[in-house]
């Protein structure tokens, strides 16, 4: 039967080839997105009973703090008292940099975890072991666990690494375990230390929010119940330190949800959208099969009259659609492999597990299942027409059959246009959202500025003062280098982390109640020259200079929003602010300048910025910023030479232009926009092909009618308009349906949109116009063919 189906298809190969290619495109897109979505969000994490794992964090709504890490005091109290939890563990809230010498210094991202961290997750090592209680004792041998990534990239996947010592910032640590590739916890960390020997449990640090918590719920306990208990327990801390814990609420979120963040809804949305593209391709192919069914109806009617059962005819149709669908699946599969490779290359590294995406047996199974479903749908739709005759005479009357099928085909074209509009609307929204994000003024220059981290290994300098002098020398030499127009150093560069140094503060004259509502400011310790180098505008007053030293009056520069928040004006030079509460004994700082706002913690995160001169701050700079007269990349060699000449032990790491810092932040929305734009373009193309195929078929089968119209006085233009009007009518109806559907379905996009409303009429109007235009474009060739019809031939033969 399959052989006969192939023979039948090859007899008139044009239509089956178009159907195959159309389906291949749809299948390639859905197969590749299925693979990525499965490996990134659907595949279980390497955790035991992952549904009982939760991330624990806080917020303070009354101070507009949406996410706050746990304090040591909270961790200890909750872990000791929560009955609903089997256990709780923590890691450092942010990765930090360490330098390993192998033997050349290499900077690696590192983190601390508590003793039960991996045990709580139920994780297993690839080699060696994970931390045990013995590793966390004060005098325990120094041990580390390393990531699979570091093991392969820096140690050549050496199986003998377990048990050997690695130099970490001048100290020897024994590697006891290697994490499996699928276990990227703490996220992005390559070197993991046991927390307790280093744990800052000193009283002055107990109430700093520096920990990310995970908890394992006891069997049968709900998240809500556990959250309620934890809140009750943590509330007791308010009596210990009212200011630190007032209004703090605890949240328990499924760990998997926390790890995946917005990636899960984004990936699932993209996968569903890819299925819509496949749906368009399927309807497209189904149209082609319907047209073929009508073309061959005479043949089938005669065979039916000769005894072929309806089931036999249906099986023949199914065999043909199967051949096309399976061929399409094979082509689609090959295309999907390339698409997956491409997606892995262009996807930002912030997407969890993107490096683990690979085509495997499940992908084959999905491709097979998808092609089978596609074949069944095509066969079912085509069979709606086959056997739809009531007599042999009617069966062999092609014109009659064509007439009956035209409405079905127009409906199929309309459905394609409707779905295409939904995809176009989604793509338009994502592109506009991406454009809005890309247009955000991050507050610094994106051109001709190079930044880099100079991670100082522990013990490299005697004290903070010596470390500050090192940075001052680096900045001074950089300024004297050719091609450098400004240079400075900073505690944190913009867009580096979503966390930072939060500064609780009191503006002079504030009441205790008003102070309690102060948002935490973003504290940045900087050297003179930093704001010039970064291109941060000075709005009032002056920048820091060399006179803002330890002996000078305490100075600060505030961001524009900080000034407006507290005084409603940016004319705030001379105003004073101090750290802590109203009654804190911290000294007042005088505002000497007002700078433009900078998005330090995320392009879409607005904070109140305060800058302290580095010599009047306890925080030592870690990054340098260099403004250049030419290409910023050229300054990298200068920077490396300067650092090496001052102290060869200090590596130059994370070298980025400010343009690259911004680019990294827009990578995910840009990828979403690109993927959806590709879907939309493909669906629009398929819709044009669909409209063309349907109308071309309709024109061919209406030749006789068109000939009659000419004989009755129609001009070529009348027939052209007749065909285009048909496409236009279908497109208008499809647009209305599509707009309604888009309003409904784009709800899932709301969480990814920035600076654009999903219900914006202009966007919908533009995509609706595009759909109508596409339909009209698809109708042009058939319409021209209709307008040039030879009436004699059309009337005599019923063909063009």
């Amino acid at each position, binding site marked *: 039967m399959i052989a006969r189906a192939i023979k039948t298809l090859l007899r008139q190969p044009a239509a089956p080839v178009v159907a195959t290619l159309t389906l291949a495109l749809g299948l390639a897109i859905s197969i590749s997105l299925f693979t990525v979505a499965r490996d990134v969000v659907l595949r279980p994490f390497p955790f035991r009973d992952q549904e009982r794992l939760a991330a624990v964090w806080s917020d303070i709504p009354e101070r507009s703090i949406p996410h706050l890490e746990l304090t040591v005091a909270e961790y200890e109290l909750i872990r000791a008292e929560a009955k609903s939890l089997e256990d709780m563990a923590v890691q450092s809230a942010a990765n930090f940099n360490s330098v390993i010498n192998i033997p050349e210094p290499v900077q690696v991202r590192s983190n601390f975890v508590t003793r039960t961290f991996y045990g709580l997750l139920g994780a297993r090592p690839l080699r060696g072991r994970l931390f045990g209680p013995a590793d966390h004792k004060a005098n325990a041998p120094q041990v580390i666990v390393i990531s699979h990534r570091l093991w392969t990239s820096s140690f050549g996947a050496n199986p003998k690494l377990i048990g050997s010592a690695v130099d970490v910032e001048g100290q020897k640590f024994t590697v006891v375990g290697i994490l499996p590739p699928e276990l990227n916890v703490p996220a992005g960390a390559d070197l993991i230390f046991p927390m307790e020997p280093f744990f800052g449990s000193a009283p002055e640090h107990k109430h700093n929010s520096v920990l990310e918590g995970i908890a394992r719920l006891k069997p049968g306990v709900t998240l809500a119940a556990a959250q309620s208990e934890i809140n009750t327990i943590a509330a007791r801390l308010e009596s210990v330190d009212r200011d630190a814990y007032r209004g703090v609420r605890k949240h328990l979120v499924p760990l998997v949800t926390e790890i995946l963040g917005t990636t899960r809804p984004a990936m699932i949305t993209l996968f569903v959208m890819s299925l819509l593209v496949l749906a368009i391709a399927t309807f497209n192919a189904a149209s082609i099969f319907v047209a073929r069914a009508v073309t061959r109806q005479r043949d089938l009617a005669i065979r039916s009259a000769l005894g072929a059962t309806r089931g036999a005819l249906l099986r023949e149709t199914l065999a043909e659609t199967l051949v096309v669908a399976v061929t399409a699946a094979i082509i689609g599969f090959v295309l999907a492999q390339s698409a997956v490779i491409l997606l892995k290359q262009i996807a930002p590294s912030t997407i969890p597990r993107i490096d683990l995406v690979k085509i495997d047996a499940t992908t084959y199974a999905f491709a097979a299942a998808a092609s089978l479903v596609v074949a069944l749908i095509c066969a079912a739709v085509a069979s709606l027409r086959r056997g739809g005759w009531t007599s042999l005479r009617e069966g062999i009357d092609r014109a009659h059959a064509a007439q009956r099928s035209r409405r079905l085909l127009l409906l199929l074209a309309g459905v394609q246009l409707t779905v295409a509009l939904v995809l176009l609307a989604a793509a338009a929204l994502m592109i506009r959202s991406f454009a809005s994000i890309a247009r955000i003024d991050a507050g610094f220059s994106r051109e001709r500025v190079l930044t880099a981290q100079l991670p100082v290994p522990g013990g490299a300098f005697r004290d903070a003062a010596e470390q500050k002098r090192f940075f001052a020398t680096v900045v001074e030499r950089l300024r004297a280098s050719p091609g450098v127009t400004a240079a400075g150093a900073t505690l944190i560069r913009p867009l580096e982390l979503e966390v930072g140094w939060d500064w609780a503060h009191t503006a002079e004259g504030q009441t205790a109640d008003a102070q309690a509502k102060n948002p935490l400011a973003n504290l940045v310790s900087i050297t003179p020259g930093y704001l010039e180098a970064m291109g941060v505008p000075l709005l009032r007053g002056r920048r820091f200079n060399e006179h803002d030293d330890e002996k000078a009056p305490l100075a600060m520069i505030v961001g524009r929003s900080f000034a407006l928040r507290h005084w409603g004006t940016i004319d705030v030079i001379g105003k004073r602010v101090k750290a802590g509460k109203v009654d804190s004994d911290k000294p007042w700082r005088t505002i000497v300048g007002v700078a433009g706002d900078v998005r330090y913690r995320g392009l879409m995160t607005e904070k109140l910025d305060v800058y302290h001169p580095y010599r009047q701050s306890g925080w030592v700079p870690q990054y340098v910023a260099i403004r250049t007269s030419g290409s910023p990349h050229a300054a990298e060699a200068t920077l490396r030479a300067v650092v090496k000449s001052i102290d060869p032990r200090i590596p130059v790491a994370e070298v980025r232009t400010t343009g690259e810092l911004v680019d990294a932040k827009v990578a995910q929305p840009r990828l979403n926009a690109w993927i959806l734009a590709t879907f939309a373009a493909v669906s629009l193309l398929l819709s044009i092909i669909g409209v063309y195929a349907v109308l071309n078929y309709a024109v061919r089968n209406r030749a*006789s*009618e068109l000939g009659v*119209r*000419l*004989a009755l*006085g129609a*001009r070529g233009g009348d027939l052209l308009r007749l065909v285009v009007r048909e496409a236009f009518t279908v497109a208008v109806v499809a647009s209305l349906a599509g707009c309604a559907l888009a309003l409904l379905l784009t709800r899932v996009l709301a969480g990814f949109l920035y600076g654009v409303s999903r219900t914006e009429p202009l966007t919908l109007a533009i995509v609706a116009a595009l759909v109508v235009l596409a339909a009209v474009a698809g109708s042009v060739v058939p319409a021209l063919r209709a307008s040039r019809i030879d*009436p*004699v031939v059309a*009337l005599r033969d019923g063909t063009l």
Partner: protein
Amino acid sequence: MTLIRTEKLTKSIPQGAGRIWLLRDVNLTIDEGEFISIMGPSGAGKSTLLHILGMHDAEWEGSYSLGGTRVESLSAKARADLQRRTIGFVFQSYHLIDDLTVAENLDVPLRYRDVPKRERESIVADTLDRFRIVGKKDLYPSQLSGGQQQLVGVARAIISNPKVILADEPTGNLHSDQAREIMDLFRELHRGGTTIVQVTHSEENAAYGGRVVRLHDGWVVPA
């Protein structure tokens, strides 16, 4: 007064290295108000001649004047305008448009002649009345008998008030009673002053007309 005149009208189509001659030197004169029948065996060129007279076919040689206008000298657009003003066409297999009702089918020629909507409605209503098919106006062609369909076909041909009706075997698909009805209708139209040129195989139908033009192998042959 002469309405149609052809001189040395010739039509051929290429086949292989040579050509097939469908019409050869056809000289024909038809006066206004005449009712003539074109007869001949299959392949004689009857329908070809009718389509040339109806200006559906522009590829021929010789001369053809309609109402004093030389068709061969006209541009395609002018030819189409002349056709719309002058010709009504009746087909053997009716060729009503399947997805239009009877009234909508009658409306089609008027629409292509840019007749305003209100006027069209009035003309269609008059025609339905004249052909006694008011009760069928909302029916689709598939709901009519062959005779009824041809009745609508004739009504559609005359609705734009043409000077001449060209009918290509108008009763070819009808049984004798229905055929007679249609031919009676043609006679009635002819008596009303309409020029009619029909192609027919039937001597009985030819008898409705005043003159018979016989074609054979593309030539006009003596009656």
